[in-house]
Structures are given as C-alpha cells and as structure tokens.
C-alpha cells in the first residue's frame, strides 16, 4: 500500500511492535524461514527487518527472482533474436541488464538493436500494431502473477489476427520450485513465506503438498513490513502448536481458490514443460511452454533459434545463494568483483535478486 511516509502510521507501528514482541517470545530456538519471491526479498531488505528480528530467526532468500533463475542459454537465445534486423524486442525493465554468456540487451541496444522497455504486454501489442513491418517479440519472464497477463496478450493477438507479435516463453512455476527445494537435502528450511501475488492467482491448493507431504508449513504473505512480521508470527505459532499448514496472512488479496479466470487463461495458452533454472539445474515441469494452436505467436516456433549451451560463470555462487544455502555476503565475489555496475551473476543483476537487495539495502548490523 503506497504512502508510508509523511503521515500518521501510529496504528500500523503499534501492530508491528506487537508482532515483533510475539516473535521474540516464540523464537526460543532457531527457525529458518525462506521466501521465494523477489518482492519479498526487497521488502525484507527495504524494511531492514533482519535488523529488528531476533537472531534465532534466519531469513533466507530462495529462487524467487524470475530474472535470476533465467538460464544463460535462454538469455543467449533472446539476445540472438534481439540482434535480428527486423525485430523489435519488448521486455520488462528487469531484463535489460542481465548478461548472457557475452552480452546483455543493454549492450545490444547500444549497438543499434531495437529494444523497448514496456510495463505491460498491452504496450507490446500496441508496438506490434504500430509497426506492421516489424516482428515484435515479447520476452516472457515471470512466475504465475505475470503469466496470465502474457496469456491474455497471446489470446488477444490471436483474436485480432495480429501476426507480427510473438512471445518467447521463459516463464517459471512456483510449486515445482518449492518441491525441488523440499527434496534437496542441502536446503534446510523450517517454514516458508509464500508469495502473496502468485497465490492471488493460483490460490493455496497447489502449495498444500509442502505442508502435508514434506511437513514444511507456509504462510501466504503480503509485502508491507507489517505483513511480513505477521507472516512470521503465524509460522512461529504453527510450530508452537505442532501444526503444518498453508495459511493466508494476505487475506485482503488472496482467496484459497485464487483467481479462476486467470488460471484458465494460463491453462488455455500455456503448458508445463521441463525448464532449466540457473543455479538449480532442470526442474521437471518447472516452466511453461506455449500450447499447440498458438504456434504463430510462439517465438520459439516462429523463429529459427540456434541452441545454446548453458555457460557456467567461474567463481559465481548464485546457485547456492538461490537455494538459500549461503547468504550473499558469504559469496567471495559479493561486493568485491560482483557489484551492481559490474555484475558477475544474475543475483546481482536483477534489482530484486538476493545479492542486489543485500547490496542496495545493506543492513547496519551486517557491516
């Protein structure tokens, strides 16, 4: 909710204080919480929550940044497309600086490629309408919050007969990622802060297996500082009461059934496929491909794209950061060789990557 500054937030502060107190009381033994949403990573960092939480609570960032988990082979593919003379690449701002094996969109733009930052796929559609002799390719990045908006654009393009618009789908899904984390013996997490806006779309049912099958409770949480505090309280209460459930803290936005209209858009246009996750390897059915019947709007089918190999970055520990195994300052490259202006790995490039968030919003206590 906007406007936190310059106003009477007394009630919110008092609520936050109460939650903080309860957290201190309940955190008698160590408890590790992972969030899997870039916006949570930033919210925690911006509110300097680690500064005020008891040391027993370890807040860890997982692979919640869709930009960070985009594999280098995917990046090289879209860089190849972006460099084609007749192509206008439309992308969210988040992707513009992400480096592939050699270059980034920003560099290509400097070399004359036509790359446009858009806020919405609706803008990308408009670009296609306004430039009938060019091919507009939209870079589809994002989890389930963003996917329906891309699905709508593909459906609209099909209905309109707009032939010069296509999407390169690099979308990823949250539940398979959670399952991979639960299955990974090296990831030690007690509970999860579940992504509020992803769940606004998919509801809580797709997450229940975490609590039931793996005994990892989760609380679907909002993005204000006080939301995160309440989410933590709810997780700690579950532990104290011996429960393992998926609960909703973010009740003002999330219903257990999610948004059925959005879900059907996703199902209509996309189909789960195995996907390469940077730092995590391949996750079965962890990504989305575009369905049969929409070939004309699927950039992968439309263009003859070469296959690229995944390139490992020497010294980069993003994989471990993404799994929450190490905190960014524990990576030897962090803030030394790897800084926002000269990022080595994806966690530093994306403004909501763990490393970038740590760097930008570094806490006093971590200095």
């Amino acid at each position: 909710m906007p406007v936190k500054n310059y106003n009477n937030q007394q009630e919110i502060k008092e609520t936050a204080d109460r939650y903080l107190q309860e957290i201190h009381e309940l955190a008698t033994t160590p408890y590790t919480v992972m969030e899997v949403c870039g916006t949570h990573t930033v919210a925690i960092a911006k509110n300097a929550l680690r500064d005020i939480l008891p040391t027993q609570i370890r807040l860890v960032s997982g692979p919640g940044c869709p930009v960070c988990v985009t594999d280098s082979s995917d990046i090289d593919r879209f860089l190849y497309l972006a460099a084609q003379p007749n192509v206008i690449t439309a992308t969210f701002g988040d992707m513009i600086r992400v480096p592939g094996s050699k270059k980034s969109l920003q560099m290509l733009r400097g070399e004359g490629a036509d790359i446009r930052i858009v806020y919405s796929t609706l803008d990308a559609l408009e670009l296609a309408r306004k430039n009938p002799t060019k091919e507009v390719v939209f870079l589809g990045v994002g989890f389930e919050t963003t996917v329906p908006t891309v699905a709508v654009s593909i459906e609209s393009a099909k209905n309109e007969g707009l032939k010069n618009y296509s999407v390169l789908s690099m979308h990823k899904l949250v539940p398979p990622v959670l399952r991979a984390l639960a299955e990974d013996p090296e990831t030690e997490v007690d509970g999860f802060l579940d992504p509020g806006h992803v769940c606004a779309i998919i509801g809580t049912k797709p997450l229940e297996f975490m609590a039931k099958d793996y005994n990892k409770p989760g609380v679907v949480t909002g993005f204000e500082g006080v939301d995160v505090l309440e989410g933590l309280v709810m997780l700690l209460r579950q532990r104290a009461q011996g429960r393992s459930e998926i609960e909703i803290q973010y009740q003002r936005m999330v219903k257990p059934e999610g948004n059925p209209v959005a879900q059907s858009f996703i199902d209509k246009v996309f189909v789960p496929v195995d996907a390469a996750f940077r730092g995590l390897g391949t996750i079965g059915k962890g990504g989305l491909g575009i369905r049969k019947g929409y070939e004309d709007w699927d950039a992968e089918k439309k263009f003859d794209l070469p296959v690229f190999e995944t390139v490992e970055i020497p010294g980069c520990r993003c994989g471990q950061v993404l799994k929450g195994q190490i905190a960014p300052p524990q990576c030897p490259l962090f803030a030394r060789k790897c800084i926002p202006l000269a990022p080595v790995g994806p966690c530093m490039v994306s403004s909501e990557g763990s490393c970038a968030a740590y760097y930008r919003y570094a806490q006093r206590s971590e200095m």
Partner: protein
Amino acid sequence: MCLAIPARIVSIEDFLAKVDMMGNERVVGTHLVPDAQVGDYVLVHAGFAIEVVDQRYAEETVELLIEEANAREELQ
C-alpha cells in the same frame, strides 16, 4: 515476485479500464477480473488488474489516504 498496487476503477470499456493510483491515472486490462465494476479497487500488476481488492481493505486504504492528506494540511 510481483510489484502490484491497489487502484480504483474510474471507467471501463471493452476490458480496458482507467484506474486511479494515488492520483496517477493509467489504462489497465481487466481481462482477468471480468466482473470488476467502476468504483471497485483492483490490484494492478504489469498493466493488468489481477484481483479485486476486498471491500473492507479498500475502505481502510481510503481512510488512511484521507488521514494522510489531513496530516499534510496541518503542517502547512
């Protein structure tokens, strides 16, 4: 992931709505919330309304905004 903020629907036509976000106006798609009406508050992400905001919360937001506006008035 997902920056989204609440906004009030000012007008709708053919799945495109004009919404008001703290005084800023933008056109967003309502394809994902076909039952949304003028006056509803919706959550906006990447140029689309993805959810209708709970009525109670919407009212709380407006109250806070009024409170904020009053606070600024006092300071001037």
